[in-house]
């Protein structure tokens, strides 16, 4: 799979629109300013996935939602454990950060964050493109990023040699920092880019 410069730009724009809305809803939810970096678009071979994701055995909190519809894909919000705890603390009006591994309330709050982030991403894309998309219920895991991403990629029992990732960094609320990842399924790319006449 190769991707032309103009298609790459269009994918960045999709990231901009979708992640922009996701960042706004996160900002509303947390009542704080959220900064969004310019989205990066990666097209990486599986064996070099760490170039996009960093150290594959770093411990992260990940929220995962499958996006179904006319141009299916996978959405993930990946953040450090501390960042996840900062968000849960703020949402639940706690005085100290919760233990995210064991605190079910905190986990549930984070799932809701995943829900709202991905829903706003998807709604923005649908409004802009007319492509109907529907997010699944969120799943949460706290583990090695590599292990979580492989499970997500292999969910349907097949995987491309290279993975396309629209990667947007979100930060704010003290030290909170996360990555919003959107991974369109193989056949979805042409549909998404068709909106740009590409």
């Amino acid at each position: 799979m190769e991707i032309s410069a103009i298609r790459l730009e269009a994918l960045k724009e999709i990231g901009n629109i979708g992640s922009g809305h996701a960042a706004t809803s996160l900002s509303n939810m947390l009542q704080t300013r959220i900064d969004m970096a310019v989205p990066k678009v990666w097209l990486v071979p599986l064996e070099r996935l760490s170039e996009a994701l960093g150290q594959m055995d770093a411990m992260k909190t990940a929220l995962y939602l499958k996006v179904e519809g006319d141009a299916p894909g996978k959405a993930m919000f990946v953040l450090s454990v501390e960042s996840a705890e900062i968000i849960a603390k703020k949402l639940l009006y706690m005085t100290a950060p919760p233990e995210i591994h064991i605190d079910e309330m905190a986990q549930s709050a984070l799932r809701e964050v995943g829900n709202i982030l991905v829903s706003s991403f998807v709604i923005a894309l649908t409004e802009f493109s007319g492509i109907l998309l529907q997010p699944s219920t969120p799943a949460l895991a706290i583990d090695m990023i590599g292990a979580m991403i492989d499970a997500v990629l292999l969910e349907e029992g097949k995987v491309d040699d290279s993975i396309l990732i629209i990667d947007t960094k979100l930060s704010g609320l003290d030290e909170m920092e996360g990555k919003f990842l959107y991974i369109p399924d193989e056949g979805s790319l042409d549909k998404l880019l068709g909106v740009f006449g590409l």
Partner: protein
Amino acid sequence: MSNTILVGMADFKVGKTPDKLMTAGLGSCIGVCIYDLQSQVGGMAHIMLPSSGDNMKGNAAKYADSCIELLLKDLYRLGANRIRLKAKMAGGAQMFSFTGKTPLLKIGERNAEAVEQELKKAGIPLLAYDIGGTFGRTINFNIKTGDLHIKTISHGEKVI
């Protein structure tokens, strides 16, 4: 000087003592090590899917069957002897559980079965394994000793 060779996803590497082989963050994938202690050579593969099937395309290192074949070729090239080869493997977890969904493909389990099957076909004894669970693993293989060191975040460390 000891050198740690990194193995990516859908990737395989071989080495000689004092090299070590490592793959980080195995989820439902399998890390399989095949080695010959007498010749002091060994290899590691990070396998993602059970079988290349009939419509094999792209990177052969993704699949249990085609990857093990490639790994064995490289091991022989380095001087491994077929009858002395042994294997160990780890991984094959189920990372996320979804509720109210169609039954999940148990890809981790199927991967483990496929690797076991391929080893059997090649006549290579599987000496030890650490498979399943719902957590990721990072594995480090010492070609000199044949020890496979397994690290997890919340389920400790072990050597098999």
